[in-house]
């Protein structure tokens, strides 16, 4: 036997379509509202942005471990994976159809493979409405079956979608991904560079990185950036659910502490 040429197959280096394909059983991938249907955002050109024919969100049907499934994946390389009218409707619509299937006794396993900075600023009002629908649909589907989030891209998940992700049954997170509400740019703009320096990568990963989120119990599994490892985690999540705890406050240091003392007290390395 020859040694494999590559030790790992990166998930983060793939686009949304290839991530969806990677999570579904081989040859089972079927895209819905594919790029050739050209349902693209009509709001971007006037704001100096070239639209993308899938709007940066891919919905794919297929199977996971032989069971009917749907993966929704966002493309962190297109406008930061932001969610506007079309992408938002794709996510909310897939969640609602999965709920309909579960009610009919023919469940569809639903996976959200998100890589997104949040609501798309160029379509903000439509994005925030879509995210409110997504949150509602996640909570409704969870009454019937698990909803699994995979956060293993270059962006991670920020903004309204991080709130939605926290509503999922399980979150599978990679070390390279980040999970936070406000992006570092936004914290720096709103509160100053002494609050958060958006160029300080170790600090950003320290306070929002996958490793911290797993240690806090906010993610059910910490995976390496490796397709087989992530696939195995997704299969495990459906076969042996390990639901995240309830959304209640956990102990944290006194917020009046100086910033660095507070972070050290949380055992975050500076």
């Amino acid at each position, binding site marked *: 036997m020859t040694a494999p040429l590559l030790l790992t197959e990166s998930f983060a280096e793939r686009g949304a379509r290839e991530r969806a394909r990677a999570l579904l059983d081989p040859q089972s991938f079927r895209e819905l509202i594919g790029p050739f249907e050209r*349902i693209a955002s009509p709001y971007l050109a006037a704001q100096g942005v070239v639209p993308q024919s899938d709007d940066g969100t891919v919905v794919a049907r297929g199977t996971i471990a032989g069971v009917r499934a749907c993966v929704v994946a966002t493309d962190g390389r297109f406008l930061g994976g932001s969610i506007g009218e079309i992408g938002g*409707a794709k996510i909310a619509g897939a969640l609602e159809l999965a709920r309909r299937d579960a009610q009919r006794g023919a469940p569809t396993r639903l996976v959200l493979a998100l890589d997104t900075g949040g609501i798309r600023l160029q379509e903000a009002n439509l994005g925030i409405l879509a995210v409110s629908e997504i949150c*509602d649909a996640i909570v409704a589907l969870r009454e019937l079956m698990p909803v699994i989030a995979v956060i293993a891209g270059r962006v991670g998940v920020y903004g309204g979608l991080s*709130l939605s992700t926290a509503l999922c049954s399980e979150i599978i997170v990679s070390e390279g991904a980040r999970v936070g509400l406000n992006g570092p740019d*936004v*914290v720096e703009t709103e509160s100053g560079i002494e609050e958060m320096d958006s160029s300080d990568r170790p600090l950003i990963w320290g306070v929002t990185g996958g490793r911290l989120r797993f240690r806090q119990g906010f993610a059910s599994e910490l995976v390496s950036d490796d397709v087989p490892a992530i696939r195995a985690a997704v299969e495990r999540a459906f076969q042996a659910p390990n639901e995240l705890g309830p959304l209640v406050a956990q102990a944290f240091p006194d917020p009046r502490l100086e910033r660095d003392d507070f972070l050290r007290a949380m055992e975050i390395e500076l």
Partner: protein
Amino acid sequence: MSASVRGRAWFERLTGTARPVGGLPPSVLAADTTVDGHAVRAVAVVPDRSARFARARNGEMGIDEGFGVAAAVNGTPAGSAILAIVDVPGQAFGIREEAVGLQRALAASTQAYIRARRGGHPVLTLVVGKAISGAFLAHGLQGGWIGALDDAEIEIHVMSEAAVARVTRMERDDLARVAREIPATARDIRTFATFGAVDRIFAVSDPDAPSDADVAEVTRAFAEVLRTPELARRNPIERLDAPGALHTRALARRVRDELQAQWDV
């Protein structure tokens, strides 16, 4: 930023002498009152100058506010409606909050409102001031019925103009022009209402210090809704069928239809 007085003013006028719900942080107000004989738990987030998180002192939704609103909503007595009074300038922009996990705190209150509504509590929302971003998602936007004051101070958006300019690398002047041309980027309540999520807009004499007539008009509207409580139990998806949304959200409707048509082979 000067802290807004509106949330507290409307909360106090609408709940009167009702006893406050205990065990909440000072920035989360809740009280059980009645409207036209219907039990209503009112919930508001207000500024607290001495809040322990420095970035959540102007009425922002932070760690304590997210979990506090969740506790207030989860504790709603059986049979009571919920009224979210909204004047939230945004979520807390702090590194301590990010480290602790602000997304979970805001998810907690979002989930509380969703479960309450889906569990049969009518959930009404009254937007009296700013309703921005994650803060609005977590406090107000899950209401089954949404009313708002007709006032230029009301701002609904996902990010401040300064931060939008930074993230999109657009000039402030260009952003203002775009907001006029593309309603999806506007920040005013009248434009937001065209997307079908706002059921009623109230013209009031003084949004900062509501008059007796202002309070009476709003209360009358609540009473009307509570007589047909299913109006305040509508799930967000139903907003897509609002008359305005047929045009303003036509693309979202088309995507839903296409997904359904292609879902099964």
